């Protein structure tokens, strides 16, 4: 048998690839096998293994959640309204179609993200400047709101009133910054 690549030298390296149950046999001579090897070795950021593993990881998922879902929903196939990617499609290629997919598939995604990222599922890094202000304002407002509840329980009404004013002020800022960001 001659090498598939060069058709000149006899094939010396034989291997069988099985990808998604599809079997391919490859016969190469030593030279070409080495060249192929060289090709593999430059596959720098090889998403290969990772994405394949990912699909496996995601495939396990539905079985865990079957009981939680209501049977009615199960029959519907989730589809992203923006890029029309379906969840089965995502499982197959391991990549999303657009930014909105994250929202569409959020319920399925959460446990997966946790597994991929060492238990984490909330971002704690860089925030784009244009929305940065909004996020920190919202966090501050949430903090103040719980302080307000606390002071009401403690019947410290004067302090509660000043916290309330502060919240109103921040909420005004927030709406202003959102309008600016939306332009």
């Amino acid at each position, binding site marked *: 048998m001659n090498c598939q690549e060069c058709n000149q030298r006899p094939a010396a390296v034989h291997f069988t690839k099985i990808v998604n149950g599809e079997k391919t046999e490859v016969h190469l001579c030593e030279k070409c096998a*080495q060249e192929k090897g060289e090709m593999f*070795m430059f596959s720098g950021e090889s998403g290969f293994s990772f994405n394949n593993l990912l699909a496996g990881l995601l495939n396990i998922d539905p079985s865990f959640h079957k009981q939680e879902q209501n049977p009615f929903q199960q029959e519907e196939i989730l589809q992203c309204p923006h*890029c029309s990617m379906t969840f089965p499609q995502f499982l197959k290629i391991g990549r*999303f179609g657009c*930014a909105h997919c994250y929202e569409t598939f959020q319920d399925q995604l959460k446990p997966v993200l946790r597994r991929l990222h060492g238990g984490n599922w909330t*971002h*704690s890094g*860089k925030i784009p400047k244009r929305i940065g202000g909004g996020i920190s304002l919202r966090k501050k407002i949430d903090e103040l709101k719980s302080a307000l509840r606390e002071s009401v329980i403690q019947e410290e009404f004067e302090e509660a009133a000043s916290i309330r004013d502060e919240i109103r002020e921040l909420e005004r800022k927030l709406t202003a910054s959102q309008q600016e960001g939306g332009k």
Partner: protein
Amino acid sequence: MSLERFLNKAVSSWMSQEGPDSDIVLSSRIRLARNFDNYSFPTVFSHEEAKQVIHDIEGVLKKSPFQKFGQMELLKIDEMQPLQKRVLVEKHLISPHLSDDAPHGAVLLSENEEVSIMINEEDHIRIQCLFPGLQLKEALSTANEIDDWLENAVHFAFDEKLGYLTSCPTNVGTGLRASLMMHLPGLVMTQQINRIIPAINQLGFVVRGIYGEGSEALGNIFQISNQITLGKSEEDICRDLMGVVSQIISQERSAREALRKSSNIQLEDRVFRSLGVLTHSRIIESKEAARCLSDVRLGIDMGYIHNMSKTILNELMILTQPGFLQQYAGGPLRPYERDIRRAALIRERIQMETEKR
């Protein structure tokens, strides 16, 4: 073309310059993945959207160019020759995926090639900064500057909970991949590497031989990078990686010292045999070349070989790959012809070192 001129054109700064700890860390790389919020991801996007992405980037370049690195050059994948693309892949400036499977791809390169921005690869934007030696922080701050520059002009897909949204959920959050390329002959020779790799994996980092398949690392060169992108800040990811890497550096240094103590003459012999092979061979395969280059580099770092620049390993590992050999030869070469060319190029390059003295 003379080899010297070819080198001047072919070698990027991370290959020819030395950085901190560059006896062990060859290069530091930061990659940030970003996407526009108004176009579909490259997985499914249309012709028009792809063009629009490039158009938008061109717009930013025209309106407010990024000055720090001089002129940035935009190269479109469909306008490049196969060999030209391959050379960029071999220099790690673009990914094989961008070169082969991204018909709408493009790359924005800085003059010194420290910065390359891939467009329409797996994500709309991938900012890459590649620095010599251990300079992860510097690479991160440069990548951040570029990110800020783009962000001033365009809207990136960002979710308050999930961070930067990426095509693949393995990159969501910071979109950051920090990686260090390390030369670890001491740990390989003393067989400690087999113990160290699983330990590193447990800490959430990935170790791969960047040349060579599977566990075998050609030229004893390994790449260590983070796996987790969500829930940790960019600085924490880099700090944790640096922590692991400084451990590896000190282990590698003590392995080298242990080898010098236990088998000095054997090591010296090995180094000079390899130098002999590189200086005199007429036909050399990439595997053998990588092994000998690693030995010679170790010989330089440990003081057995004098008057030879350290960067010879970085340079020749890149330049003896098929794409470069063919570019130097000025046309396609068959594998056997490449082995001859490779031997000639290595001999000439080493000759240049002796002439410098």
